[in-house]
């Protein structure tokens, strides 16, 4: 089942490795027309893969104190260069950071915030 779901995700990507809505729709239609055994489980696995692929192309930028547009644009360019694919930026305010920024691309997290720096101190005092 995992192997099939992996093949489905390959069918959903374009040449640059991005998930394309149209291709996902085609995969779903094809599955609906010829429902496989354990259709629901396969769809769940497919969903997990799609989510994972989508998260690779999006940088979730959390901040406490909004960065200016220029900084965001430069961040976008730097991340796209580093990961070798176009990265979209999604901004979210997070007051828990106190001061600073946290960027999440896929499983990778880059963080420079007061909250991270205070964490070892809190651990040492606990």
């Amino acid at each position, binding site marked *: 089942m995992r192997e099939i779901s992996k093949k489905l995700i390959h069918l959903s990507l374009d040449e640059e490795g991005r998930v394309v809505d149209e291709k996902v729709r085609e995969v779903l239609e094809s599955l609906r027309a010829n429902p496989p055994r354990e259709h629901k489980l396969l769809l769940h696995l497919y969903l997990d893969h799609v989510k994972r692929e989508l998260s690779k192309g999006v940088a979730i930028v959390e901040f406490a104190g909004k960065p200016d547009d220029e900084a965001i644009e430069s961040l976008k360019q730097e991340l796209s260069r580093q990961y070798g694919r176009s990265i979209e930026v999604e901004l979210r305010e997070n007051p828990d950071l106190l001061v600073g920024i946290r960027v999440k691309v896929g*499983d*990778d*997290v880059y*963080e*420079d915030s007061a909250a*991270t720096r205070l964490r070892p*101190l809190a651990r040492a*005092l606990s």
Partner: protein
Amino acid sequence: MSNITELIKKEIESLSTDATRTNVGRITTLADGVARVDGLSKVMFNEMVEFPDNVFGIALNLEEDSVGCVILGDASRLKEGDEVQTTGRLLSVPVGMGLLGRVVDAIGRPIDEKGPIDSSENYPVERIAPGIIPRQSVDQPLQTGIMAIDSMIPIGRGQRELIIGDRSTGKTTIAIDTIINQAKINKLGEESGDPDFRPVYSIYVAVGQKNSNIARTIKALENNGAMDYVTVVAAPAADNPANQYLAPYAGCAMGEWFLRNGRDALIVYDDLSKHAVAYRQISLILKRPSGREAYPGDVFYLHSRLLERSARLNKDSGNGSLTALPIIETQMGDVAGYIPTNVISITDGQIFLETDLFNKGIRPAVSVGLSVSRVGSAAQIKAYKKVSGKVKLQLAQFRELAAFSQFESDLDAATKAQLGRGARIVEMFKQGVYSPVPVSVQTGVMWAMENNFFDTIDVSRITAAVESLKEYFTGSGKEVVQKIHEEGNLTESIEEDLRRSVEDWKRSFA
């Protein structure tokens, strides 16, 4: 107060100004102390991962789209969806002299309410065992203080000697006696001021035991003044299986510090049967394929990689040693079980304890036929080797002839003498708990046995006679024992002194 401000200042100084990069994932399932995590694509095998609320875990299963992590500590506050992040560190424990006299848990945190551990160094719990080049063969004795063992199954520094037997046959007692004996030798050595004296420090790892048993062991060590030279690593039955799985490796890392710093250490794994069971539990929850008796395929490697870390290093590598006394509990005396045979094949010999002997009052209940030490005899001191050389053979002959002993009236004098000698040796080896005997005293007693001084004493009085002779050697006969200790050999003059002393004792005993 000033300590706290200093601590905060230190932390502020150590704060880096660079952004941190970590790899994260999310808990998808959580059960029995094991979390399955989605993400963590860059996690390393055996890397420590951080869960919320200062809970740590270890990444043990790196699969294609998920990671299986065992949780160290309280998993009750964690929930599905919680973020997990890599730390870039392998699990390490504090090591060094500061651990002596302390009781710690499987990851080296103190649990004896004696404050923080005074240690500036950490060693990873998993480490590759020393290779061929830095090793040296075993040539220094590690005396247990138990006559039956030191004479017939001698142990050397750097050896791995398995203690195996059913429940309640005295396995832990042998290990504790050995630790107490090391402490006694250490104290005497330190008092003597001998610059060449090499103390043996001990680590006792309790895996899957009842808390009351661990407390009793610690009490016994304290009462016998041994705790100053001992570190206890406790992963009791109430601990999660991850801690029980890790405890032997953590204890081994603490022992390795002595090994790598040119010192001698002894480590007791009590016991590896429960360790294997804890590992089986983790493996089954991690959905690893199970094999014989539902143990995972790498259960042999589990113990071989642990026990291979015990070694004697050569002079170029610091001359340190780590001796291991793993303990295995058998079921109904079955030494052919899966885990017992694995550990027997890994170790350099075994001390097999028999329930029947224990119930007959022969304690320690060492089965001479099934026990063996493959390398230890090279480490015996000359004096002791001289007097104990024939004992194993005499006992073997005794056992063979014992079947005929019921027809004693029909036996010839030589056979009767062999039977008598065997019965007296069996009585001589009976020894109380927590009362190890110095090897020089053992040599004196064995010499008396080999030179027929006990032959005229009735078998039923041999134990009392041996006790009396031991007392004599620590009192008015201590000069000759001291000479044996200093010379390490039975010279003609020492033998003459020994004869005079034993004759003197025998007059008073009679």
